[in-house]
């Protein structure tokens, strides 16, 4: 059996050697053609996970544990070889197409750059491909000429250019970090559809990072919920949404306005959202026991002693087992 495309095996990222842990023991496997949604709030470590995979962590951060791409140990790879992977086999789509695109380089040159660099194509060859890619992402010529600059495009159009850039070299893994957060809902829907189609056509794996439960539910086959630098629940999207075994997953859903039932007694008060009390703990002050215990409505005495590991909730046998890092996983479903 060949090595998985992407394998995280207890991936840990710390500030300096033996310093504050920002990511703690992340494990997951992603194969071509799969769509995995990484969900969490700011500070949960989801963007850091993406940067670790891309080999773009700041100098002072130390990686330990397993992080392999097609069998290669990424942290051990010399920068020279990492550079050949980035943009070629692992490509990234960032949140802000405004800042992620080069303002003084035409969109055609930016899309062609990867192919000239990685595949050694001539300018003419690469630009012919860039033209086809722009057509494919919904920016047809002659209206959307290769010579246009990012400032001449709207936010949604810029995000289409980013997708064309990311897809240019036919990567095996696409990482999209909040690709639609800055966009209006109708544009967001178009961009997510486009991303979905590109993944389907190319057979690449998609790692979709988002804070939006609705976006993952509609896009990912599988989700991983992150909190305070670890995965607290993961499984097939439908199963996780049907049960939400970890109190944080439940809390995140209940706090979002989606979860709100508007019915109220005549003249009665407006129904409140179920806010999660407190705040995400500072990485330097994460407890040794369950990281969510202080905010959890179902906390038990043992939660304040033990740090739970991800454990299976079902009998197993499923392609993606449903796992939760909770000593007292919730049984009840949330689905309306």
């Amino acid at each position, binding site marked *: 059996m060949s090595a998985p495309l992407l394998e995280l095996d207890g991936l840990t990222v710390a500030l300096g050697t033996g310093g504050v842990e920002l990511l703690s023991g992340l494990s997951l496997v992603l194969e071509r053609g799969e769509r995995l949604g990484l969900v969490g*709030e*700011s500070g949960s470590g989801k963007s850091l996970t993406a940067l670790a995979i891309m080999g773009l962590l700041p100098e002072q951060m130390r990686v330990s544990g397993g992080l392999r791409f097609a069998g290669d140990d990424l942290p051990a790879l010399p920068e020279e070889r990492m550079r050949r992977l980035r943009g070629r086999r692992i490509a990234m789509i960032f949140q802000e197409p405004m800042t992620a695109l080069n303002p003084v380089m035409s969109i055609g040159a930016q899309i062609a750059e990867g192919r000239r660099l990685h595949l050694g194509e001539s300018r003419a060859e690469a630009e012919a491909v860039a033209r086809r890619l722009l057509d494919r992402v919904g920016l047809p010529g002659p209206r959307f000429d290769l010579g246009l600059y990012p400032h001449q495009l709207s*936010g949604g159009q810029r995000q289409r250019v980013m997708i064309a850039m990311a897809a240019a070299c036919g990567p095996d893994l696409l990482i999209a970090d909040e690709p639609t957060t800055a966009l*209006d*809902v*109708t*544009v*967001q*829907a*178009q961009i*997510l*559809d486009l991303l*979905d189609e590109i993944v389907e056509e190319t057979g690449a794996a998609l790692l979709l990072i988002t*804070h*939006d*439960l*609705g*976006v993952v*539910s*509609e*896009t*990912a*086959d599988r989700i991983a919920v992150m909190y305070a630098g670890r995965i607290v629940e993961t499984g097939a*999207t*439908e199963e996780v*949404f049907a049960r939400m075994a970890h109190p944080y997953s439940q*809390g*995140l*859903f209940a*706090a*979002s*306005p*989606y979860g*709100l039932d*508007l019915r109220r007694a005549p003249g009665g*008060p*407006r129904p*409140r*959202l*179920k*806010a*999660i*009390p407190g*705040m995400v703990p500072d990485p330097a002050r994460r407890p040794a026991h369950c990281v969510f215990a202080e905010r959890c409505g179902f906390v038990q005495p043992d939660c304040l002693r033990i740090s739970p590991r991800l454990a299976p909730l079902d009998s197993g046998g499923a392609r993606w087992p449903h796992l939760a890092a909770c000593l007292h996983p919730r049984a009840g479903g949330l*689905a*309306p």
Partner: protein
Amino acid sequence: MRTAAPLLEVRDLVREYPLPRPSLFAPRPVLRAVQGVSLTLPAGSSLGIVGESGCGKSTLARCVMGLERPQEGQVLIDGEDIYALSRAGLRRARVKFQAVFQDPYGSLDPRHDVRRILLEPLASLQPETSRAERESRILEALEAVGLPSAAAGRYPHEFSGGQRQRIAIARALITRPALIVADEPVSALDVSIQAQALNLMMDLQERLGLSYLFISHDLGVVRAITDRVAVMQAGKIVEEGPTQEVFAHPRHAYTRRLIGSAPKPFSGRRRRARAAQEAPA
């Protein structure tokens, strides 16, 4: 006695921006940001304005706040046209309506402590307020948003995003206004913190009888906090009605497209843009 006018009434508001001439002798094109909008907000209720970027919702908010003089139409607060008032008259009227903005990082001066930030509206609108009254107002406002009185001596950088938005709300409350114009007040906050801030706004509304003009691109948030909602597209209101009604039975095609495009948990994997186009009436 005057008959009870609604707290806020906007009549046929038009706000245009002249654009640069495309060539030397060409006429100046005009961007019509708000094209004849009328709204009514009764005291104690909340009205949401939803729409996508560029639809004119923030321009409308700025006109209501007295920050942007409309070319046509009126903004009446308690029956008084704020653009017909003298400077002094506007200052007196401004006590009744305050604003909360989106960015809790950009809207608080980092060099001022919380006490000074909170006092700013009082200092400019009611400079005659006595020292003792100011102190009690600060405590009242901090208490209302659930911050300890010790917060008054601290600086914005010492607070989290959610707490900063509480400070911005406290600042809006300090003049004891009847209306708060909130432009994307919770958009920069994480879901769990956003829920805390929205609940706080609902609590304050019930306790103090506040009215909100709540501007947001986030349909879920607007659905949670407003009684009525107006959907704006290209400077015009295309649909307006009770929030539950509009969300359950959107009439205008654009409203249906907005609601259909919004991602929803439990919908399973789907192609969204197409689904939104085909959303049932």
